[in-house]
């Protein structure tokens, strides 16, 4: 079985600052893969490389067996056109820390937007799916609300529904609960748990160790642009073998 995501020596730098210093990892299909680590460790950057929101400087990154952002002929790499990159992004859903819902559209319109505009789906079909998805995240009664009329937790659940509307094979979560009030975190995690149970492949950058331990199939601890430790969440979180991991976990657990 091909890995859903495979990274080989991925490097990324912003100017002189090296953010990723050689990441190697593999995410299997249907796996919930958690990325944890202190802020500035490069986890979010790595996540953004997967759907080519950031270009990597060295190494290779594959999604579903295909190179991200490039095409290889022989030993030469060719940059993909923007339209080709966009085509690949259809299959990768992304959920942001700050939700990034479209504020000028209602919740329903947010969810319908990509299927109608990108997949050219009929509005009636897109509407039906959007209603189903909003129902799934528990917000069928908020379909007509604008994002500014929703709480943070509700906005994030709409954002998840919006990503699911494109029927992705991979979902990326970039600290989906970090901008939420503690009491609203649970609703969002419930939706993610439900997704995981459905067999969605998920890469989750998170500080929710409870979620990682309970739902995660694999966990990577990153620090300063490198993978320090990886394994099953139970092992890494329960019996960390590296000092840095121990130091970090003692602060967040």
């Amino acid at each position, binding site marked *: 079985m091909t890995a859903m995501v495979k990274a080989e020596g991925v490097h990324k730098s912003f100017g002189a600052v090296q953010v990723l210093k050689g990441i190697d990892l593999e995410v299997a299909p249907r796996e919930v893969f958690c990325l944890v680590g202190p802020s500035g460790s490069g986890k979010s950057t790595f996540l953004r490389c997967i*759907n080519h*929101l950031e270009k990597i400087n060295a190494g290779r990154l594959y999604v579903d067996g295909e190179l991200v952002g490039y095409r290889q002929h022989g030993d030469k790499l060719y940059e993909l056109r*923007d*339209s080709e990159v*966009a*085509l*690949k*992004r*259809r299959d*990768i*859903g*992304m959920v*942001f820390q*700050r939700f*990034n*819902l*479209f*504020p*000028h*559209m*209602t919740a329903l319109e947010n969810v319908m*937007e*990509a299927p109608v*505009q*990108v997949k050219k789906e009929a509005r009636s079909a897109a509407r039906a799916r959007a209603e189903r998805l909003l129902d799934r995240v528990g917000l069928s009664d908020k379909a007509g609300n*604008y*994002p*500014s*009329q929703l*709480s*943070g937790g509700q906005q994030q659940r709409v*954002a998840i529904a*919006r*990503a699911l509307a*494109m029927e992705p094979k991979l979902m990326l979560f970039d600290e989906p609960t970090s901008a*939420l*009030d503690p*009491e*609203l975190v649970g609703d969002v995690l419930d939706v993610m748990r439900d997704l995981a149970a459905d067999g969605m492949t998920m890469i989750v950058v998170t500080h929710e160790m409870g979620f990682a331990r309970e739902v995660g199939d694999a966990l990577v601890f990153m620090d300063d642009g490198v993978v320090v430790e990886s394994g099953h969440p139970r092992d890494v979180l329960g019996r960390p073998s590296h000092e840095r991991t121990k130091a970090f976990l003692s602060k967040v657990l």
Partner: protein
Amino acid sequence: MSVDINNKAEPADSVPAPPEAIRAVPVKHYGRYVSGVIAVAVLVLIIYAFSQGKVNWGAIPDFFFDGRVLGGVGKTLLLTVLAMLMGVVLGVVLSVMRLSKNPVTSSISWFYIWFFRGTPVYVQLLVWFNLGLVFEYINLGPIYKDYWSSFMTPFLTALLGLGLNEAAYMAEICRAGLLSVDEGQTEASQALGMSHGKTLWRIVIPQAMRVIVPPTGNEVINMLKTTSLVSAVQYSELLRVAQDIGQTSGAAAEMLFLAAAWYLILTTVFSVGQFYLERYYARGSSRSLPPTPWQKVKANVLSLSNRSGGGAAA
């Protein structure tokens, strides 16, 4: 963010007894009365001074709805709308070009703005008028061929002069609007697989409009007044017509007042339109839309009658 805004206050009948409302003697604002009286007095003095001047005020109503004046108003409006339309469309294109990653298009846009913003619009109008010195003919192959001087009618000169100049200013306004939209919006849209064009058209521009509309309203009003410059290229808009009538009827100053009144009426109408346009683009950005003037009046009247009603009861 944590407040559940849909949690409505409990219905009034379930509340046992509302607390007694405060009734206090309001602060007396004497300054407001004094300044009000002074302002009215100054206004009366000014009106008196003008009424005593050697101005034949009667001539203004005589010509206010004169066919020539109305024609001039129509042409001023037509020119304003078309030049603005040209400015907005070209301005959006230029701002997108300016922000594009393509170095050629962004340089072209930079150069355009540099040139058209760097020279006075009056000079540009005159240059368009005299471009026949450079291009003797206009030749579009089999479609169209004519002398430049007969092709460049006063109307076309005025439209190109004003519209192309406006585009440079609109480009900067639009650029500010596009830059004001959070980068997360572009990322979210791209992550959904939307193309650059779709992202711009569906996501970024609608949000940029909130920033673009107010200064654009300003530009429309400016444009309306700037059209008075095109009398220089023989286009008979409002000011030119007013001046012509003034010369033949011997009421030159009166006709200027007449033109001023018309400009004021038109700018007022545009301002009202701007208000509703801003209101439209504010949807989704705030929890409730600002009230329309009519709603404000209704609310004020209502609160006034409540207050007097309460006063009478007390």
